[in-house]
């Protein structure tokens, strides 16, 4: 669904870290975020630089390229979610990818980014993802093999026969009816407004 062009968005006070190894691509990303109204941008061209910025600055959003020279973007996000200072651990992340090499597919799925944006994309699409991140209400999952936003956008409950891992997980399996269906008149009575006895 496209972002409503009339919706207002204010990124004046947002602090964004851009992680991109290629100078041309970094210039393009910087230009896009300047256009979005972001005034404070930090730039990192390697995983080590990005880690330093995370440790020393308060960030509101991280936009990271998947390909980097020392540690790739996936490893950087993995570090962020597990080993970064507590104040930064759950900073929202948009990951930018080019080609998805076979060896990277699982890493990409498990890295813990809020959204993954595949190239090519337009500024409009990137802005939409920034907006999605701002409206992202998913909880963070901290598990042995995954730390990041809940990958389930809808809580449909655990699969049939599987015990849920959340305290509030209910099975989707309702089972056979134990009582006859209600009459329409009974349902109407339930919905009918009644005078309250005070």
């Amino acid at each position, binding site marked *: 669904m496209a*972002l*409503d*062009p*009339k*919706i*207002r*968005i*204010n*990124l*004046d*006070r*947002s602090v964004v870290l851009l992680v991109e190894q*290629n100078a*041309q*691509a970094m*210039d*393009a*990303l910087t*230009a*896009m*975020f*300047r*256009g*979005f*109204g972001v005034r404070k941008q930090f730039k990192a061209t390697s995983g080590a630089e990005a880690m330093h910025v995370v440790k020393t600055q308060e960030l*509101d*959003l991280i936009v990271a*390229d998947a*390909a980097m020279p020392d540690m790739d973007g996936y490893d950087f996000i993995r570090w962020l979610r597990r080993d970064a200072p507590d104040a930064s651990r*759950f900073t*929202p992340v948009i990951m*930018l990818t*080019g*080609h998805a*090499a*076979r060896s990277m597919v699982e890493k990409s799925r498990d890295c813990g980014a809020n959204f993954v944006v595949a*190239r*090519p*994309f*337009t*500024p*409009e699409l*990137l*802005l*939409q993802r*920034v*907006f999605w*991140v*701002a*409206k*992202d209400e998913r*909880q*963070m*999952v*901290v*598990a*042995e093999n995954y730390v990041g936003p*809940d990958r389930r956008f809808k809580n449909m409950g655990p699969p049939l026969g599987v015990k849920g*891992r*959340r305290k509030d997980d209910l099975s989707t399996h309702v089972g056979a009816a134990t009582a006859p269906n209600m009459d329409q008149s009974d349902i109407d009575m339930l919905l009918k407004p009644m005078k309250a006895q005070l």
Partner: protein
Amino acid sequence: MSEAQFVKVKYRLTEQVATPGGMTAGMASDRAQRELAAHAGDAMKSIGAMIGRLEIMVRDQEVSLDTVYNEASTVLDIAGLFDKRVLCDACYSLCELVDRQRAHNRLDWASIGVHVNALRLLWTRDGQDPDSLKSVVDGLWTITDRLAP
């Protein structure tokens, strides 16, 4: 199976985007597009230089598949920020081809060469005759798909 913890997080970004001021999403996209357009010329020159390096790699046949993959994916990374869809599709096909060759442990310079020649053509004819350029990309995918993923 270990117990997963669920942590409710409130992003500062959520409050920031909703504070009074700012601009409409349409205005922000237009501004970003204008800012980006100022870099398009340099980016296209840079892509041209990278295609040149790929041409040398194909001619000399001395580098590894990893080197070809890295160069091709950099072209894809830059072209992708400028929404150069046809060039990106061709580049994606080259990356996929090289990735499949790596997986099968084989090196076929001829098919890589066809891709690199096509990249040069698409770069030269950027924005012209989209239908015929799309057919070039379709042809590249036919070559790539000869090798199973």
